[in-house]
């Protein structure tokens, strides 16, 4: 009994300090005194006062790692022992257990030491804008997008990109700021100047109809060509395989090659050409080269800017859902490896009703401008391999084409907001309506009637042709229609409401009102006009019910009308206005360069019932139904510009109005701009003087006003006041931030962008100091789309998401984890955090949740039913689903692999670092490789267990590996599996059932993944703490040190009271004195 009891005691003792450490981290880097025994036993014999081997004395070394020098000395000792070099082979060796414990203690102490020695003690170093912030700031200020990749990358693996101490400046970078600022100003002014000088806005569009160009025609011609060769071959063969020239073929090789191609392709070409609608569009089919993708190439002279790609496409019915995705790839012709995925879209349209998809794209100098549309697939596969593989597929559903493309086109460059002047055009409808109705009545009806009567009056002598009517039948008809419909027309004309508007009759007379956007004529018969650019527009209709109209008829329907197809309804509206108090309906519409530009309005009736309704009323009352709706006027307005224009855009656009001569207005104008660029901080007078001089110098050299202004403006955009977040504070002192400084800090924290006018205004009025106002602003800012930058910027760095791009995934093995899925998997992590922010959910739902946030593509990958479309949305999952929480996300699991095989070590270490907030020490360098396992067939667990034989490995791997094993039911790309195998060429193959059971080090056991997830989810405080530390690191721009414990504690505690709701973390930090002081 006694030994067992001791064992128990030991476990109890050893688990206490561990838990203790996690709750309140050790703050002093000191090696436990009891390790000195280890030292004296194995080290000091050679490293003592007399012997000092390798100039190293260890008998008097301090166990406190309180200086950089001492910590470095210990790091070297650790390295030597890890590398197996110390103690030397020929001397006494420690037994494995003691060595493990010693190494464990030492490496953990070094982690503490690094944190302690790196502690900034609350000091926040002034920082420049990082690349993301620079890009956002330029966009917010000028409304222009710059490519920040031209600036050197920020930060590094350990520090977030908001940490000032790790954001540097150099002469090269400074010159780049000058260049980029200059380019942004060019981009701002160029289109505006073009608009001013009456230039066309330079927007171009080119559509490519694949069936008329290279595509199926090429299949047809390739088919014809090869068939001809085949026929020649047959004849040549029949003639005894002699000279090929009489058959029009150079030589035997060419003859045989032709036949080879025929044999290879004929079947596939025939199949393709037999597909429906192949004359109107093209299929994307991986079985045939050049049909496997459609290229859309922008010409070299297409100027850089924002463009739209469009594709009209539909999918073949009855094909598997996972094949309904179109990938759009950007790249160059020359180098297929140079391609990158631009977008993946789920196709909702069919062959009968294709849909038009739009993909925005940026065209930049020196960047590829070719685009390829294909069925989503791994991009790097060689074309021949792809075609052959496809032809070998047995299942028709796997092999046959799914996507059909009517056309592809590009259009652009889109003009920046504020360049195209917005227009409004209102039309009083009665003018045209009355002319039309009266014209019809007076001309066709009354005119025809009169002629008919006149002919009748001649006693039908002579021909009706003399009266403009072809025959007697027509005469009778004209009399009939006039007598039938004439009263309805007359009723319309005499209705007093038509004096100020138009009435919507159900049938004949005036059944529809309309609004037309240029180039369509304003009313039929008028001139066509210069087209308005595509974009978002608003239609407005001032409409009312007529006094006697029954309620059920008070519905207005908008749609497209043409003679052939009649009226195709789009939307309907209930009309509540009265003729005394009409209402104005506002209808947003998207205008494309191709789509309809005339929109019609009618009373909502069942299509096809119109004439019946009319006839019925006419029989009853002699006239058509009483009109139920009256329209006063219609108008369109646009283009409406969604999103924000740069905050300085108005000011900059006014540059052209600056008076010539006299520096004062220019100086004042520059002063205003500088203040905006410096986030509401004034510049010095001397600086403004110098800016004015730069402008004057340029003018003197003959530059135009705008050209000369660009000089000082680009200087402002490269000045410290713009580039740095400036919070001056005296040496060894701290002070509360000014309200303006808080606004700036807050905006860069939550938006990675400058404060908006509202925030600056609140600061200027001193309101921001009130906690409830500040809290309100935090909520407003987190609800603003700009906060997605917080979600991605923080999450990417906190969870180390960059690792996903470290390895290339073996898409031969994992076909569905192509670039499209990888991008969606990454986005899932961000969209999940975004949902937490939107709904203010607890951060611990990232450990386990009953929902996932996925789009159609990812749902398909995970095997979740009933999710279609490209938008990410919340989808519930059952308790038996491995999904729900970070541990079940493909991105997280795939990061824990090398692209080919799972890496339980990476996964385990990631869980310790990110979910349990118990980071293992960094991987030691120079640990000898395990070579003795080479050539053996082992399970993953067996292979890794070898790690734990050697003390220098066991110290960490005993904590890391069990967690990794618990996740082995997920394969390399995060799909569920129950079996695994290992194959070695020349040795053999081994298969095994996965055993995920294990236990956390000094912690509870788990039998499978679900239990492991539960064990981890049971520790939300640890996770919350890790999240809080990452957020503080990100928000304050400095790593979290031991002196921040109090802050971390209070943030976690505050949030814990609200079930760890994510916004509470943010609010707690923002409300803390640390955030509001420098």
């Amino acid at each position: 009994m006694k030994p067992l009891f001791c064992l128990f005691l030991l476990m109890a003792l050893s688990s206490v300090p561990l838990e203790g450490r996690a709750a309140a981290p050790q703050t002093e880097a000191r090696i436990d005194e009891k390790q000195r025994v280890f030292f004296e036993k194995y080290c000091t014999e050679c490293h003592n006062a007399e012997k000092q081997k390798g100039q190293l004395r260890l008998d008097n070394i301090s166990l406190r790692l309180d200086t950089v020098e001492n910590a470095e000395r210990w790091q070297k000792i650790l390295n030597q022992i890890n590398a197996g070099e110390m103690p030397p082979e020929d001397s006494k060796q420690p037994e494995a257990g003691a060595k493990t414990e010693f190494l464990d203690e030492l490496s953990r102490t070094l982690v503490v030491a690094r944190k302690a020695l790196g502690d900034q003690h609350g000091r926040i170093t002034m920082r420049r804008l990082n690349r993301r912030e620079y890009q956002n700031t330029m966009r917010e200020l000028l409304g222009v997008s710059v490519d920040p990749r031209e600036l050197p990358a920020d930060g590094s693996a350990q520090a977030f990109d908001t940490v000032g101490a790790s954001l540097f400046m150099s002469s090269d970078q400074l010159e780049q700021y000058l260049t980029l600022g200059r380019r942004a100003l060019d981009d701002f002014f160029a289109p505006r100047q073009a608009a001013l000088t009456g230039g066309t806005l330079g927007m171009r569009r080119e559509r490519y109809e694949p069936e008329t160009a290279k595509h199926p025609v090429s299949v047809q011609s390739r088919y014809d060509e090869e068939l001809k060769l085949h026929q020649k071959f047959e004849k040549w063969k029949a003639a005894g395989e002699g000279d090929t020239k009489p058959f029009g073929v150079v030589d035997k090789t060419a003859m045989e090659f032709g036949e080879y191609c025929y044999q290879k392709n004929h079947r596939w070409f025939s199949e393709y050409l037999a597909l429906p609608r192949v004359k109107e569009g093209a299929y994307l089919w991986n079985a045939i080269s050049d049909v496997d993708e459609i290229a859309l190439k922008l010409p070299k002279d297409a100027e850089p800017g924002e463009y739209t790609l469009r594709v009209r496409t539909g999918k073949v019915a009855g094909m598997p859902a996972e094949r309904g995705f179109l990938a759009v790839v950007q790249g160059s012709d020359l180098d297929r490896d140079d391609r990158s995925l631009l977008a993946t879209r789920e196709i909702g349209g069919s062959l009968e009703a294709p849909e038009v998809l739009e993909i925005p794209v940026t065209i930049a100098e020196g960047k590829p401008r070719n685009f390829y549309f294909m069925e989503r697939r791994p991009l790097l596969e060689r074309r021949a391999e792809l075609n052959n593989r496809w032809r070998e597929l047995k299942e028709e559903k796997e092999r046959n084409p799914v996507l059909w493309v009517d056309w592809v086109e590009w259009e652009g460059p889109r003009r920046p907001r504020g360049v195209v002047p917005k227009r409004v055009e209102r039309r009083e409808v009665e003018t045209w309506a009355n002319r039309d109705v009266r014209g019809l009545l007076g001309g066709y009806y009354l005119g025809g009637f009169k002629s008919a009567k006149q002919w009748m009056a001649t006693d039908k002598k002579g021909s009706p042709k003399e009266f403009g009517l072809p025959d007697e039948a027509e005469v009778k008809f004209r009399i009939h229609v006039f007598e039938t419909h004439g009263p309805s027309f007359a009723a319309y004309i005499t209705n007093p409401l038509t004096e100020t508007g138009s009435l919507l009759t159900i049938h004949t007379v005036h059944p529809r009102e309309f609004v037309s956007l240029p180039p369509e004529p304003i009313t039929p018969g008028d001139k066509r006009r210069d087209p308005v650019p595509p974009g978002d527009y608003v239609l407005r209709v001032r409409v009312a019910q007529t006094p006697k109209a029954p309620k059920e008829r008070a519905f207005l329907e908008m749609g497209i009308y043409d003679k052939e197809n009649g009226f195709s309804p789009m939307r309907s509206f209930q009309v509540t206005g009265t003729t005394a108090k009409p209402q104005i309906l506002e209808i947003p519409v998207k205008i494309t360069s191709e789509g309809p530009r005339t929109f019609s309005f009618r009373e909502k009736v069942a299509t096809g019932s119109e004439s019946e309704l009319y006839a019925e009323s006419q029989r009853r009352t002699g006239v058509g139904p009483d009109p139920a709706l009256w329209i006063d006027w219609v108008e369109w307005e646009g283009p409406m510009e969604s999103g924000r224009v740069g905050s300085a855009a108005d000011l900059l656009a006014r540059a052209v109005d600056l008076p010539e001569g006299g520096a004062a207005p220019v100086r004042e104008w520059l002063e205003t701009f500088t203040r905006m660029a410096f986030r509401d901080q004034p510049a010095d007078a001397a600086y403004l003087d110098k800016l004015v001089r730069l402008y004057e110098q340029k003018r003197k050299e003959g530059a135009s006003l705008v050209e000369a202004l660009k000089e000082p403006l680009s200087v402002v955009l490269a000045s410290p006041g713009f580039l740095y977040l400036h919070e001056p504070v005296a040496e060894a002192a701290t002070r509360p931030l000014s309200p303006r400084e808080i606004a700036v800090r807050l905006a860069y924290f939550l938006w990675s962008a400058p404060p908006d006018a509202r925030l600056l205004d609140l600061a200027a009025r001193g309101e921001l100091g009130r906690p409830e106002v500040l809290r309100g602003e935090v909520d407003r800012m987190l609800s603003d789309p700009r906060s997605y930058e917080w979600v991605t910027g923080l999450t990417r760095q906190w969870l180390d998401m960059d690792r996903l791009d470290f390895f290339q995934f073996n898409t031969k093995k994992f076909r569905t984890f192509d670039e499209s899925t990888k991008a969606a998997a990454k986005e899932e992590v961000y969209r999940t955090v975004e949902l937490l922010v939107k709904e203010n959910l607890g951060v611990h739902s990232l450990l386990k949740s009953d929902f996932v946030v996925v789009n159609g593509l990812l749902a398909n990958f995970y095997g979740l039913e009933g999710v279609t479309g490209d938008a990410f949305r919340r989808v519930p999952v059952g308790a038996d689903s491995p999904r729900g929480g970070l541990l079940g996300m493909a991105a997280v699991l795939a990061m824990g692999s090398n692209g080919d095989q799972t890496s339980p070590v990476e996964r385990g270490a990631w869980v310790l670092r990110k979910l349990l907030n118990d980071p293992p020490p960094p991987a030691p360098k120079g640990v000898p490789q395990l070579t003795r396992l080479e050539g053996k067939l082992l399970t993953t667990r067996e292979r890794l267990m070898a790690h734990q034989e050697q003390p220098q490995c066991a110290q960490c791997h005993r904590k890391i590996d069990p967690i990794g094993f618990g996740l082995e039911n997920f394969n390399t790309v995060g799909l569920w599996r129950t079996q695994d195998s290992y194959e070695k060429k020349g040795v053999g193959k081994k298969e095994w059932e996965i055993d995920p059971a294990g236990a956390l080090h000094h912690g509870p056991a788990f039998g499978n993944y679900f239990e492991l997830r539960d064990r981890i989810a049971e520790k939300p405080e640890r996770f919350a703490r890790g999240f809080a530390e990452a957020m503080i690191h990100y928000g304050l721009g400095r790593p979290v040190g031991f002196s921040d414990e109090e802050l971390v504690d209070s943030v976690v505690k505050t949030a814990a009271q609200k079930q760890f709701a994510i916004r509470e973390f943010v609010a707690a930090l923002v409300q803390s004195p640390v955030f509001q002081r420098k």
Partner: protein
Amino acid sequence: MKYPLQSRRHFLRAAGTLLALPALESLGFRRFASAATPGGAGGRPKRMIFLGFGWGVTQETWFPDVKQTGSEYALPPGLAPLAAHKADFTVIQGLSNKFSNEAHWGSTFWLTGANRYAEPGQSFHNSISADQVAAAHLGGDTRFASIQLNTPDVNNSGHGPGLSLAWDTHGKPMGGFENPVVAFHRLFSDENTPLEKRQALIAQKRSVLDAVLEDAKRVQRGLNRTDTDKLDEYFQGVRDIETRLGKDEKWLSVPKAKAPLAEPKPGLAGKEEIKLMYDLIVAALQTDSTRVVTYRQPVGTLLSSIGTKVAPHDMSHYTPGERTEASQKRDATQSELLAGLFEKLKAIQEPDGTRLFDYTCIAYGSNIRTIHYLDNCPTLIAGGGAGVKLGQHLVLKDKNTPLCNLWLTLLNGIGAGVKQHGDSNGTLGELAV
């Protein structure tokens, strides 16, 4: 040291032309060269080339057998393409940067030996690179103190942070040309703008700097020590641009050297890019446009250009099979390209038989040995520039010898006369002739 410039120009004027700049063998070059610091091969000014290749090598097949040292050693397959030059280079084993701890940073500290964590609280720190020490010594009399060449394929190539191999006096990254065509024009094409216009342009750039400095002074007011230090980077950036402008001004009226090669084709990548950059290096040194060149080479595009489908990082973890094959093919191709560079440097000859190779020092290597190992950095030294012993396979007794000891040895070999570089603790006696 100012005379060469003067005399060269005078010579050209006297010869009645400003167009044709002399090739190496012409009178003009010799006159120029002989006027420079005496010492070394024929008293010609020394040249230095640093070539960094990111993701290490295949250790099993790149390093010679440690048991065969001195001049009698067998070339392993990874170095086999260099066989013709075996007497002209030395392979050294046992060098490393002791502070390096980033397994994917093959170039960041390669020439600096800096401790990334030397500044408490900062996650990154670097110091001057060996090439810039050389440039301070050799760069005074040439149009370009140094030329940095780079590749667009940085992210794939295991180089780590930085803009090129070069880091300035303050440990800040220096930009490099990633486009050979741009580098070509910078080196050899004269601008069409008239002199006065170019002078005005320089004056205008100075006014721009003057203006940003004015605002920097405002921002500087009332800052504490740490923030003042941070803003100092900005001031230093401005000063560095001013220095560059000063040099531009000095050379304003001197036409650029005539290009000894045709304008490169755009769009080359991988193997072709390296070959072309090597040609540019030879041309730059041959025309004495600069005496110090670094080149941070591509690895990712190199792999695809030799038909390998393995991703570069995957290749660096060469497991048996496809990845190892790719790694070895990369080694051989890099050696083949290097042999090409040696040949070109040897082909440029003075009438007395001295070759450009004889007064150029070439250092070729990476901070990453193999996989994630940062010790025994692959190192190959060639050329007569630094006067070190060639044709050797050296296995240093202390296998933790600072790589900076080698840089110090080479820097002193070209006459820079520095006492310390990075974490050096001495020179490599083994390299003494």
